[in-house]
């Protein structure tokens, strides 16, 4: 893996631009980075499998010393990513949670399903960014069958518990439903 010393910008014409920058939470000597996308179609570059991405995230999170670092990173993800276009933040795309709200939009691109989502709470949004990184840009089959073990492994299980009622669990269910529905087509 390439070590990034400064931001780089990768252009995949015509649909998306990908920006990579060193993660502020890791020393530059470690091969860690996170990406900020400008286009919502960045997910299409997923050449890794769902499990490979999950393992990558688990590996990234293993470098955090305590919960503060972990949450700062999630908050960062939540703040930086423009996840959904405003037009989709409507009733139709809304997943109501008791605590926070989530909007989810699914597009089909060839045999890939591309998700965009958003939330009114930044921690929820940061976790959404991770879920999208894992699930978006894969086949309906792969999404429907995905076992999202990374959430447990990185210690964010509580955010996907039904009692938390932040819309995340419903969002994951909804994403899988899209997968199932498209699989059936």
């Amino acid at each position, binding site marked *: 893996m390439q070590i990034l010393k400064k931001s780089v910008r990768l252009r995949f014409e015509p649909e998306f631009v990908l920006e990579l920058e060193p993660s502020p939470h890791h020393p530059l000597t470690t091969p860690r980075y996170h990406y900020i996308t400008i286009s919502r179609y960045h997910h299409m570059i997923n050449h890794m499998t769902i499990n490979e991405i999950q393992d990558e995230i688990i590996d990234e999170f293993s470098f955090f010393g305590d*919960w*503060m670092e972990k*949450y*700062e990173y999630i*908050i960062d993800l939540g703040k930086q990513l423009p996840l959904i276009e405003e037009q989709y933040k409507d009733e139709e795309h809304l997943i109501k949670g*008791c*605590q*926070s*709200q989530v909007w989810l939009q699914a597009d089909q691109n060839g045999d890939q399903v591309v998700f965009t989502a958003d939330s*009114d*709470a*930044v*921690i*929820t949004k940061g976790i959404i960014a991770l879920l999208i990184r894992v699930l978006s840009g894969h086949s309906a089959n792969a999404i429907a069958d995905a076992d999202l073990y990374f959430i447990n492994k990185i210690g964010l299980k509580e*955010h996907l518990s039904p009692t938390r009622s*932040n819309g995340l669990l419903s969002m994951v269910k909804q994403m899988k439903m899209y997968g199932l529905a498209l699989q059936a087509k």
Partner: protein
Amino acid sequence: MIKVPIAVDMEKVRADFPLLNREMNGKPIVFLDSAASSQKPQAVIDQLDAYYKQQNANVHRGVYQLSQEATTAFEKGRELAKSFINAGSLKEVIFVRGTTEGINLVASSFGRKFLQAGDEVLISAMEHHSNIVPWQMICEERGAKLKVIPINEAGELLMDEFDQLLTEKVKIVAVTHVSNTLGTINPVKEIIDKAHQKGVPVLIDGAQAIPHMKVDVQELDADFYTFSGHKMFGPTGIGVLYGKEEWLEQMPPYHGGGEMIETVTFEKTTYNELPHKFEAGTPDISGVIALGTAIQYMQTIGHEAIQEHEHELLQYATEQLKQIEGIRIIGTAEQKASVVSFLAEGIHPYDLGTILDKLGIAVRTGHHCTQPLMDWYGIPGTVRASLAFYNNKEDIDKLIEGVKRAIKMLG
């Protein structure tokens, strides 16, 4: 009976609550969610234990000694509840599962008997869902309308509007004594007096008042007053509905079953006397007995000491929060009890609550089951810190420190 410890020093009182010794997320717990459910003193826990070890038997039916003992202990719970709220008679003290069931009982039973098409039920803008939905359900069934007393920005009822809304169409008024979201203490005596001038009965949701202040239902002249045991240091699953005998006698039973009958034939059943008419099935025997212990426990500390201590803490918390830049207090009524709701500018309550949780601080975030109230303020919810007499200044200091830290992370 378990002996209730005599305690006046609030730090000693705190030591009576074993749960407060535990940790949350690796930090000593700062419990500021008593408005959702309070912690239990050792005396209540011991009472539950003792009941199941030594007294457990069904009540009211047994000829054997054990059942009689259980019945005596159970009915002692009713006596304690009666004196706690100064009810006029034991017939007026009905055991329910909690405030929600108390309101559902009245809405359903009173509604079926007294509500007609075109009638109105008057509630307030700051009601908990449990004092909205049961009324909506019965209104829909009976073709009646739900009307709402509005509030001002501070979270106080607009009493002029109340006067206007109190027309001859209104058949019952149902308001909360203390708001679970804002902490507002409503002028329930004034509401009751005004309603009575028009012959309208009033139900008071006392869930948030009873753990914090002396309630005298006869002095208030409330027609119905209901509260939950678990918010006043008793067990979950037990609550009290006080109702004036004159109303309860006229109302049909709510649930059918054992205990509430006098004679049953397949043709006709006659109902038992009050309060049993409204207590179908085996009651929460251990809950009633331990609720009695919670009442004795509170009486030992004394309402004055409780109120004074909590008022001081609430003032302190409010002042400290106000000093943090970007904090907005939701609910600034003149008369408040034990609840401070707030928002940090640009920060979602869920995010703030999540960080506080990681710091070992238990607060509630969200709409607190008062969605219409949140809509009125145009906010998704609040962060709510709610107090009980076992809280101390150190808890508040930790909250303030936690809020500052969370704002730094999230802002």
